[in-house]
């Protein structure tokens, strides 16, 4: 059975033109099966985040394709790419990127709101709030729903960001250095949470340069000089959970 959720084919990305052109990605190929916890490693500036953004349709490649369930996302309309980001992808960033004006619950609810008009929201609101509350419970923040981001610790903020990324039950979670801004203990907690989510069937692609963090993945790839140089299978005894569709059981 073809279990591939996401496939990147010959991704090229460069910035600038002429003599100032910087070729960041020079033909990256990668395939991510559903349920896998994949880590992309590499030195700073090697293009890890750029690659992740392209996978999440936040950025577009100069050449190459990203296929999600076999369909090229960049051959689709901007509206469909927005739909893809909203429904199929969950982003977790190093700096959390929470909205300071909103409380924890509202931050988690925003992706749901993005997917609804003011008219359809009336019907969806109750279910959305309940899903957000469940998600906060899952990340261990049910008591913090009314707090503002500036009242939370770094670890708590990252948990909110994870809850926000998962509220629409995306097939794929893209995490860009999620522990990069946290101390070791808190980082370990976040990693543990991600592992638990993966164990429950969530497909995760994570960018990191921390080998200790990477050790928790099923597979890690090294990006160097714009291409994937090395693929290393899991060493910690973890194998991908067998899932037909990579959705977290609610």
């Amino acid at each position: 059975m073809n279990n591939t959720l996401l496939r990147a084919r010959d991704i090229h990305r460069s910035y600038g033109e002429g003599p100032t052109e910087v070729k960041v990605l020079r033909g990256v190929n990668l395939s991510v099966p559903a349920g896998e916890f994949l880590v992309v490693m590499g030195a700073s500036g090697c293009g890890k985040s750029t690659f992740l953004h392209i996978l999440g349709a936040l950025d577009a490649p100069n050449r190459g394709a990203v296929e999600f369930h076999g369909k090229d996302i960049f051959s689709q309309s901007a509206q469909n790419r927005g739909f893809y980001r909203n429904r199929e992808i969950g982003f977790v960033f190093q700096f959390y990127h929470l909205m300071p004006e909103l409380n924890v619950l509202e931050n988690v609810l925003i992706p749901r709101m993005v997917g609804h008009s003011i008219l359809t929201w009336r019907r969806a609101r109750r279910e959305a709030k309940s899903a957000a509350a469940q998600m906060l419970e899952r990340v261990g923040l049910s008591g913090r729903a009314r707090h503002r981001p500036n009242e939370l610790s770094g670890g708590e903020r990252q948990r909110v960001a994870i809850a926000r990324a998962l509220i629409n039950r995306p097939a794929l979670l893209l995490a860009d250095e999620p522990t990069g801004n946290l101390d070791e203990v808190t980082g370990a907690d976040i990693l543990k949470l991600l592992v638990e989510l993966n164990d429950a069937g969530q497909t995760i692609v994570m960018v990191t340069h921390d080998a200790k963090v990477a050790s928790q993945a099923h597979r890690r790839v090294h990006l160097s000089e714009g291409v994937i140089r090395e693929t290393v299978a899991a060493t910690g005894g973890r194998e991908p959970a067998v899932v037909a569709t990579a959705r977290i059981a609610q």
Partner: protein
Amino acid sequence: MYKWFLAWRYLNTKLIAFFGIASVMLCVAMVLVVLSVMGGFLDTIRARSRGLHSEIVLESGSLQGFPYYEEFQKYVAKEMPDVVRISTPVIYTYGIFRVPATTYTRPARVVGIRLKEYVQVNDFARGLYYERYFPGTTHLGEQSMPVAGLMDDGQIKLPEPLESANKRWRESETDPKTLEEFDRLPFEKAFFPSVTSVVPATRVFAVGAGPPSFEGAPKGGVIIGVDLLHYRRPDGNFDRQIARGADIALTLMPLSPTGNPTGEPPVRLPLRYADDSRTGIYEIDELCVYVEHDLLQHHLAMDAQPLEGGGSTRPRINQLQIALQPGVELNSARDRIQGAWHRFRVSLGEDITEMDERALAFVTAYTWEDMQRQFIQAVEKEKVLVTFLFGLISMVAIVLVGCIFYMIVEKKTKDIGILKALGASGKGVGGLFVVYAGAVGVVGSLLGLLVGSVFVWNINDIQDILASLNPQLRVWSPEVYSFDRIPEAVKRADAVWVAVVAVLSSIIGSLIPAWIAARVWPVKALRYE
């Protein structure tokens, strides 16, 4: 949904939005104040202008006037009873107005009226000062000077007809405010501490040492434009220094039917100050005096004058003021009366003199609006111009909202990136800022309407406070604008219109920043720290 939610949240939490709200509020308040004051000014002018004339005025536009008016009055009364309610002749001329007891001399427009008829065709009665508090006592016939006197019980009283007229008025007046107003008139109670009720004394009535009486030789009465006789204080009230019944002299220059001076010496007409009139139009109240029609007609030689070859000239007038039956449409009535005039002229046949024929040729019917059109149009244009200028200044609000939203978009670049990462489209993110600007416009407009309305409603009190600090700060001069008080009504339609334009302006102001927000590259935005 996020657009509305975030717009509302930004509105509540972003201090910078309050600058936008404040600018919209100030612009809305400013335009509303200007519209209300100018609109009120225009409405008052229209209302006052309406009261100056009867509904239809028939006139030749010439000082020597036109004849056959009595015949025409009978003609329309017979032919058009469904249109014409009443008509009255009016004579206009110019003369020199003098108060013999002082050195006060001014040019004046002398109007000859039949008071009883005149007050039935227009609002003239409403502006009469003494007639208001002493109803039925103002007339233009021969009269002596009423002199208040000291009674045995220490009270001052006016001669009987006036005293009982005032009593009647007091009994019939139901509005306690008006009674209070009367009691506040500048009657000199201080001279008579024993007086228990307010009695008009010097300044408005002469006071003698004996009992109340009428003194002096009877003379024809004259009603005087209030600004011609009395000094209007900056607070709008009048300083009445001339008592009722005082001697007044008018000097007139009679004209022959051809319009030339008759060759006779100017006529000096001794009169008594019977009342003063306030139409509310300064240009009229500082110029006009009103005397008995027949008296003026006689002294101007506009009555029937014997001719050398026998017979006599026809009496002439300058205007025939015509009041219409209730419900008759103004313009169609004018046209029908004009038609009636032509038919009437034809009915006169060939018997009329060449001079009369010439005088009759230019007689035209006008509505009161026609008569005041130039004046009203000037004010209307002024209103449009001032509103336009202030509206133009308010365009600054658009630029200001644009600048504020540009700053907000710059500041919210990271949020824009987050929203796009969460699936929001560029259009949706742009829409967020348009909704946000709309919300700023709505809140700013509502506050502006509130501030503007409160300001307009209290504009006179505000001016009084400012004037008490420094008289130079009194911007509304009753001497100039004819009205004592600045118009202080806010029209609902004006308020709605101003608010809608302000909200649209805010939205327009946000379009460029919203377009910039829509085009933000999410990757760059997310790296924005």
